[in-house]
């Protein structure tokens, strides 16, 4: 517990302290030159800068695409597998398997799949589209300045849909058979059983899935780094900015970006924690 206090909360405090100084150069980082307390100055500068706004916009877009994609696909798979069928185990493994691959490794493959050449020089997915006669689907993928980051959400969706499926499948299995029977006895159609009996019981699962995927999305870094490069404007997100600042000895801005990310995650997670806590308390 002491270790937690020092190495987690202590360091978070140190991070906030650094982010409130003007520690922007190597000399200040080593203490050769003094640093001055500037309060929230770094935050204001960052939030006002066009580059950081672009990163935040990218992060939002990435999160939305990633969340919607994994939730929709994961839920659909779970629903399809929910009814007992032959070879269910195989499907489950196949869908879940991409999660076993690291983001870095899959990023290397997806960098090639998402090659932005079109026409004669096309490679990867664009080439595939040509071969099956869907030429109009060719696009520059992550090199599009506005929507590029959404293309990087594709591999992320590919990797984590199976996980969301597993969560939902567990949720489906957690609904006692008696409830369904009772619904059917009351004359509900199969759809109505889903709509009024099963789906409402899945909402805690959906909420946890949202939280897990959502916070993973905010931390997105490795996948982006292995497909793109830190200096590529089209795929910048705050985590990449943090890395770039750190590499150029700008510790104060780096810490400020880290703090902003922490605050965003906290805004997402804390209401959920309060919600579950209340429920547990009332359940007792």
């Amino acid at each position, binding site marked *: *517990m*002491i*270790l937690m206090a020092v190495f987690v909360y202590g360091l978070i405090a140190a991070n906030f302290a650094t982010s409130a100084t003007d520690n*922007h*150069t*190597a*000399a200040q*980082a*080593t203490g*050769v*030159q003094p640093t001055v307390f500037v309060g929230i100055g770094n935050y204001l500068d960052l939030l006002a800068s066009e*580059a950081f706004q*672009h990163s935040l916009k990218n992060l939002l877009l990435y999160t939305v695409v990633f969340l919607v994609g994994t939730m929709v696909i994961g839920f659909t798979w779970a629903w399809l597998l929910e009814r007992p069928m032959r070879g269910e185990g195989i499907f489950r493994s196949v869908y879940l398997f991409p999660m076993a691959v690291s983001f870095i490794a899959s990023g290397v493959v997806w*960098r090639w799949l*998402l*090659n*932005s*050449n*079109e026409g*004669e*020089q096309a*490679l990867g997915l664009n080439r595939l589209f040509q071969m099956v006669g869907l030429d109009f689907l060719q696009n*520059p993928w992550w*090199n599009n*300045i506005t929507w590029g980051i959404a293309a990087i959400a594709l591999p992320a969706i590919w990797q984590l849909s199976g996980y969301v499926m597993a969560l939902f499948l567990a949720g489906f299995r957690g609904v006692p058979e008696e409830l369904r029977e009772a619904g059917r006895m009351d004359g509900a159609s199969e759809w109505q059983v889903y709509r009024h009996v099963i789906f409402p019981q899945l909402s805690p699962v959906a909420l946890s899935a949202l939280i897990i995927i959502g916070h993973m999305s905010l931390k997105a870094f490795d996948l982006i780094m292995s*497909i*793109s*490069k830190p*200096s*590529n*404007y*089209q795929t910048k997100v705050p985590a990449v900015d943090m890395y*770039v600042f750190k*590499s*150029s*000895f*700008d510790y104060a801005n780096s810490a400020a970006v880290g703090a902003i990310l922490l605050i965003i995650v906290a805004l997402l997670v804390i209401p959920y924690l309060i919600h579950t806590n209340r429920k547990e308390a009332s359940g007792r």
Partner: protein
Amino acid sequence: MRRIGVVATAAAIGLALTACSGGGDGGGDGGEGGGDGGTDVEVFTWWAAGSELTGLEALEAVFTEQHPDFTFVNGAVAGGAGSAAKDLLQTRLQAGDPPDTFQAHAGAELTDYIAAGQLEDVSDLYTEFGLTDVFPQDLIDLLTVDGSIYSVPSNIHRSNVVWANPTVLESAGIDPAAVPADIDAWIADLEAVQATGVTALSVATTWTQVNLLETVLMADLGAEAYIGLWNGETDWAGADVTTALEHFETLMSFTNTDRDGLDWPEATQMVIDGTAAYNVMGDWAVAAFEEQGVERGTGFVDFPVPGSDGQFGFLADSFTLPVGAPNPDGATAWLETVGSLEGQVAFNQAKGSIPARTDADPADFSEYQQSAIESYASDAIVPSLAHGAATPIAWLTAISDATSKFTTGGSDLATYQEELAAAAG
């Protein structure tokens, strides 16, 4: 609850113990071999593969011969074209655990380390080893910061070289032996190539685009005004910079669309394969041609970026003496080897670059290297931007960001120039 407490305490003690023993190991690292006063010299580089590794091994052989009292310890960190090594180095220096000597690009990239008080002044060693007489004055001027020198270069590379595929040029009706006089003439050739359906100019990710940008700036501004960009004498918002940026924009319009997904070897490979006519890259690219048995003259031609003839866009790897190095005598011995004629010849024969010393015999080197040695001796030496010779890291980062934004269509030329001017402060 009590049980949890016990487990947590036990875990805490366990971790504390590992931490201690870890610390002990770390301390042992520097002076290992160690109890007898420390003969180990840890040489920290990112030379972990290819011609760079062969070069390091050649240098190690010379070191063992010249200084048998010391033991070479390879501290190479692989990955990310040096970025992994630089990150680790940054952490180690900050934690007060420097290697005995580390590799860094010579020039302004050292500014941060110098300002942070992490490097020793090695000017005295220059006199002691007689380096002041054998390094060109241009180079020494570029290495000197406020009257002091902080590193010893092991080699010299050139950044402003065009590599071209003669077969592709001929099929576009261009004489491969004729070098365009300036960027405008080159653009005419690029148009001719593009008309044949081949990618006219191959380029890769942001840093190679910055490499292209710097060569255009050299070509359009000339050596003096180009150097002025870095010392504040040339105005970034000026009209001649605008012309250069317009040229850069035009050149980028001839490039492959998947550039941001590639690194330099893939872009150079396009010239080797004949899917692109030209590529601008530093002269380490020559190794890519030679490794594949492509002959200079028939398989590829090289010339300075049109308009930048007479300028030598220089970058150099160099070695330093960090403050608090565990074995400063060993590090000094290493620096002596790095600067020595024998060391420079052995290293550069293996790596494909050229010696920083002017007294090496050109006959020991390959045909391309001989031409580079000749230019190095006669041309104006100007610092490369993309490779840390011209600016501190933060400035280069700002230029890279602005360039990426511009080439992906996130800003127009006027905004780009404003951002470059703002980066210059």
